[in-house]
């Protein structure tokens, strides 16, 4: 069985400061992992994905994530937050036939 835990329901940062959104996964095999972003009343957009190649994955809009098997983590980071980054972020793990979603982290960016 798979599970994904997003450790923070809300994260608040100031514009220009670093972003860290935490995600831990549980899987009986080496998973594929994804981060999605959702702006209000919009669909989900794929930010980046890990599929057992390089452990440091770069995505769109300056985001990146590092797969750490020893810690079962896949945290999302960005060096400098922008106001347009304010949205909800979902960590996702692949399953046999579907994906398992975390409950989401709302990123709030203040000026």
């Amino acid at each position, binding site marked *: 069985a798979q599970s994904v835990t997003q450790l923070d329901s809300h994260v608040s940062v100031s514009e220009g400061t670093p972003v860290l959104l935490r995600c831990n996964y549980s899987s009986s095999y080496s998973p594929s992992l994804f981060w999605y972003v959702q702006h209000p009343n919009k669909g989900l957009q*794929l930010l980046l*994905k890990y599929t057992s190649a390089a452990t440091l994955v770069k995505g769109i809009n300056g985001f990146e994530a590092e797969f750490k098997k020893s810690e079962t983590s896949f945290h999302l980071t960005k060096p400098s937050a922008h106001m347009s980054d304010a949205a909800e972020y979902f960590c996702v793990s692949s399953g046999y036939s*579907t994906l398992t979603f975390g409950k989401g982290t709302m990123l709030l960016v203040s000026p």
Partner: protein
Amino acid sequence: SQTIHQWPATLVQPVGSPLSLECTVEGTSNPNLYWYRQAAGRGLQLLFYSVGIGQISSEVPQNLSASRPQDRQFILSSKKLLLSDSGFYLCAWSRDQGRGYGYTFGSGTRLTVV
């Protein structure tokens, strides 16, 4: 390139009325198709998925149903809506059950049952 269309964008329906939400994919063949529901503070809940025409797997028992009459068309239906059916519904497609490529989502339908 592949695109996914979902409509309508918003819908307000009375309790007990029927529902039909449609999703179509262009630019690919034999996609895996999914319906998710997103309720406030509860993340995404998989409702149905389909790996081919006429093949529907249900993840959650409810008064909703899904159909796939054509390869790239996925329809979510209900005969009688309940208040608890309100939420944000997302259609998605994938090539390989999501393992390598992830999912591509539609823009969603905001359903309010009154």
